[in-house]
């Protein structure tokens, strides 16, 4: 997009109006996934494997099928029958295998059968009537053990061409990138530190469990209501798994009670549709919290080795990282993303990174806010902190000295356009937090973070009403106030008040394909498409005015919500407000709408810097976060309050990941903490206020300069908190979470 296409002065953008769905959400009337019902509806429930790894010898569902309350039972056999699209392969096959186990149960919680019954209680009771005979197999849940020569093989032949010969079959993808000569670089360093780090898997922890209501007939036509970050991917995937035509399944996205990447795929939706097809009635499935933990997407766990060389003046001479990510019993752990993001904030002459995608007997990992990036940042930024400590250098100065900027060749290959990392570091240095004195027992930590951001397929329509109001149809579910941002951007272009615009998340039958609400893409991509759709409508408004005045259309410009004669015709006619044009539109050529669809490529990349103060109690090992400041480049904040909210939410999730949250597996391979009591996410009394600084270095790839802000905020916290805790405790913390027992053990080891 040309730079002259960009706007820098705004009327609506940058203001903080109430969100359009606010009233519904404070009165309880907003409809989330589990809030929908249908006439004749049945309730579904899913039987799950109690074993981490087992061959399914036999499933006998005859007793369940014979029960009066049960209307359908499905197993994998009900999905394999796909005459329309035979031979599922690739990711569709993986998703099917995850949605309903085939020959083997691959993790504790893997779905093996499902029932539909006349009530939720009856469905749960009926699961007990299904008899499954298992042959229990050896299992592995740890990433390093899963790569060892004697590890049980999850699935032969899952590795692709990228994996070097001689690796264990559980290593299924391999990534290597970088530039320069790292060995020469290490030789130039005054100090080289090499260290290893481990992080456990965490869950996205959205408060709304997965829920859906599906109806599918023998005619191949279906309706599906579900909580999802992207209903077109649900439509496409369900159609493939059930062997129906994509366009015959209409999917409507409910209000979504959090996703953070975890609702970008399907789990129960194809099961509800399969049950519905068999029972010929609508079927609703709502997961329990325990099912959410056991069977939906946690992050990968990681094991990492980092080596960084530095001169006495703080110049990084070389950096190398090896990142092993365990992503459950399927390919997909973002070892490549971790590797590519790890050193991305820095301008490095010599850098090399290697990523491994490793399978183990755990649930299929799903995206979680900047997937893969936080773990790598934890390892790299911890080593940087240690280098600063040992060389007696200021951690912000060192990062500024090495910071990537416009023209830097990124560690993962391309050359950066305009980016805002230096500006976030300068803001950190100038922030009162950075110079505030610390109390005894407290430590301060700094970290930078990077994320790619994403464009993705996007389609938006805008229609004007006769009274001059506008309706905007977007295809990206609103996971954090995006309808407000879309309305602000449309208001900016049309020149009508924010309140006169209604933004709707359209169903799959009302709009072309839209990629998922992920990759921090919604305000960027749907926003760009909204702006372009509004401009498209403005062109038509100008045409109507030109026809009325009898002047060429290029002699009409759009200003403050009015068509205005310009150029040689300037001042010849009174401006016509939008509502006056739409009032006559039926007689002057018909309805006026705007539309835009594209896969925008200019998402740009995103950087942030976090400052954290932590206090460690040496008696109990408990850590308190006493002060937290997030500084991040938003490009242009459309609705600053919701940008702050993204920063604060990312920091809070990072605090949980750093201090408390982890998947704990027993020796039997079963998840031991599958409820919120045992998997403890931060509560209000755990956290301080989270201060935010919005840096605005405009993204050249967006008409208003927007950069996505959703994900980068979770990249720095793990490292920043680990650095704060390490500095407070006087001992380097190399494993997350830094729970009290681990801190006590580290203090003890340190004498």
């Amino acid at each position: 997009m040309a730079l002259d296409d960009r706007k820098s002065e705004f009327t609506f953008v940058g203001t903080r109006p109430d969100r359009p769905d606010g009233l519904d959400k404070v009165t309880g009337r907003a409809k989330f996934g589990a809030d929908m019902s249908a006439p004749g509806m049945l309730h579904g429930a899913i039987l799950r494997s109690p074993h981490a790894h087992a061959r399914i010898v036999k499933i006998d569902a005859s007793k369940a099928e014979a029960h009066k309350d049960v209307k359908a039972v499905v197993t994998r056999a009900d999905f394999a029958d796909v005459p329309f699209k035979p031979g599922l392969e690739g990711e569709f096959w993986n998703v099917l295998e995850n949605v309903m186990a085939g020959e083997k149960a691959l993790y504790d919680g893997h779905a093996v059968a499902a029932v539909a019954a006349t009530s939720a209680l009856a469905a749960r009771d009926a699961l007990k009537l299904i008899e499954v005979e298992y042959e229990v197999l050896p299992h592995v849940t740890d990433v390093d053990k899963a790569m060892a020569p004697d590890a049980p093989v999850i699935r032969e032949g899952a590795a692709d061409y990228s994996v070097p010969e001689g690796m264990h079959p559980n290593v299924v993808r391999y990534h290597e990138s970088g530039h320069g000569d790292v060995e020469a670089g290490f030789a130039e360093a005054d100090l080289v530190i090499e260290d290893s780090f481990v992080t456990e898997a965490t869950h996205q922890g959205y408060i709304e469990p997965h829920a859906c209501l599906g109806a599918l007939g023998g005619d191949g036509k279906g309706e599906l209501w579900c909580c999802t970050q992207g209903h077109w991917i649900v439509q496409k995937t369900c159609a493939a798994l059930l062997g129906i035509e994509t366009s015959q399944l209409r999917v409507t996205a409910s209000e979504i009670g959090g996703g953070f990447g975890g609702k970008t795929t399907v789990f129960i939706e194809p099961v509800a549709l399969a049950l519905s097809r068999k029972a010929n009635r609508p079927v609703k499935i709502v997961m329990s919290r325990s099912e959410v933990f056991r069977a939906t997407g946690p992050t990968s766990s990681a094991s990492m080795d980092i080596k960084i060389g530095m001169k006495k003046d703080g110049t990084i001479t070389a950096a190398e990282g090896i990142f092993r990510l365990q992503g459950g019993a399927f390919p997909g752990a973002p070892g490549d993303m971790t590797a590519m993001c790890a050193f991305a904030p820095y301008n490095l002459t010599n850098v090399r990174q290697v990523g491994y995608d490793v399978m183990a007997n755990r649930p299929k990992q799903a995206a979680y806010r900047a997937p893969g990036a936080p773990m790598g940042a934890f390892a790299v930024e911890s080593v940087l902190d240690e280098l600063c400590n040992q060389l007696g250098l200021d951690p912000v100065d060192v990062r500024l000295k090495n910071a990537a900027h416009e023209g830097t060749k990124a560690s993962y290959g391309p050359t950066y356009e305009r980016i805002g990392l230096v500006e976030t570091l300068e803001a950190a240095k100038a922030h009162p937090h950075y110079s505030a004195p610390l109390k005894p027992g407290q430590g301060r930590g700094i970290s930078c973070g990077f994320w790619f951001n994403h464009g993705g397929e996007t389609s938006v329509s805008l229609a004007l009403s006769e009274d001059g109001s506008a309706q905007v149809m977007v295809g990206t579910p609103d996971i954090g106030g995006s309808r407000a941002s879309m309305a602000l951007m449309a208001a900016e272009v049309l020149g009508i008040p924010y309140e006169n615009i209604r933004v709707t998340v359209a169903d799959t039958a009302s709009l072309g394909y839209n990629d998922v609400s992920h990759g921090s893409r919604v305000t960027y991509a749907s926003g760009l498409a909204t702006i372009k759709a509004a401009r498209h409508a403005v062109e038509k408004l100008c045409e109507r005015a030109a026809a009325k005045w009898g002047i060429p259309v290029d002699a009409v410009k759009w200003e403050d919500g009015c068509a205005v004669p310009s150029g040689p015709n300037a001042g010849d006619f009174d401006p016509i407000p939008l509502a006056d044009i739409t009032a006559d539109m039926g007689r002057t050529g018909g309805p006026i709408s705007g539309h835009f669809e594209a896969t925008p490529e200019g998402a740009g990349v995103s950087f942030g810097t976090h400052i954290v103060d932590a206090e460690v109690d040496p008696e109990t090992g408990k850590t308190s976060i006493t002060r937290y400041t997030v500084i991040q480049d938003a490009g242009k904040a459309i609705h600053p309050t919701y940008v702050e909210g993204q920063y604060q939410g990312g920091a809070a999730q990072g605090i949980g990941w750093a201090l408390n949250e982890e998947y704990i597996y027993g020796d039997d391979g079963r998840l031991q903490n599958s409820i919120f009591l045992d998997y403890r996410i931060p509560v209000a009394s755990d956290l301080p206020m989270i201060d935010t600084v919005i840096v605005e270095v405009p993204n050249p790839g967006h008409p208003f300069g927007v950069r996505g802000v959703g994900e980068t905020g979770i990249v720095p916290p793990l490292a920043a908190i680990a650095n704060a805790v390490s500095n407070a405790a006087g001992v380097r913390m190399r494993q997350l979470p830094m729970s009290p027992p681990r801190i006590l053990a580290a203090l003890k080891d340190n004498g």
Partner: protein
Amino acid sequence: MSKLHVSTTVNGDPVEYLCDPRETLLDCLRDKLNLTGAKEGCGTGDCGACSVTVDGRLVCSCLMLGVEAEGKEIETVEGIADGDVLHPLQKKMIEYAALQCGICTPGILVAAKSLLEKNPNPTEEETRYWLAGNLCRCTGYDKIIRAVMDTAAEMREAS
């Protein structure tokens, strides 16, 4: 198992339902009375998304059986506004952008209203501890705490 008849009062309205003895109050509110404002986030009393008051006491409706509501006075998020007039907490939650996805919002509102009825002038720490039973995964609580404390200040001024 035969169902039991329950007569209770919800948001001032007398209601009746038949429920299985195993069904929770939350199940009954949502599935029998179609009051879907209270949410099930965990089913184990850990997330607070199902918060309601029973005879003025704040409870997780997932931890109480439907049959236990017999003769009680239940208040849910649907009863917080007075007709078309929003409660000050509801207004402040919107104004502060104290919600992102909004799934925890009904529980937060019920719990916060209960706090302010007991303590019209809570400190930040008191507010944080009172709301410690209401999980929010989106906001980091910052804007929620500010919204509740500002509401308290405004209500004190108004009274």
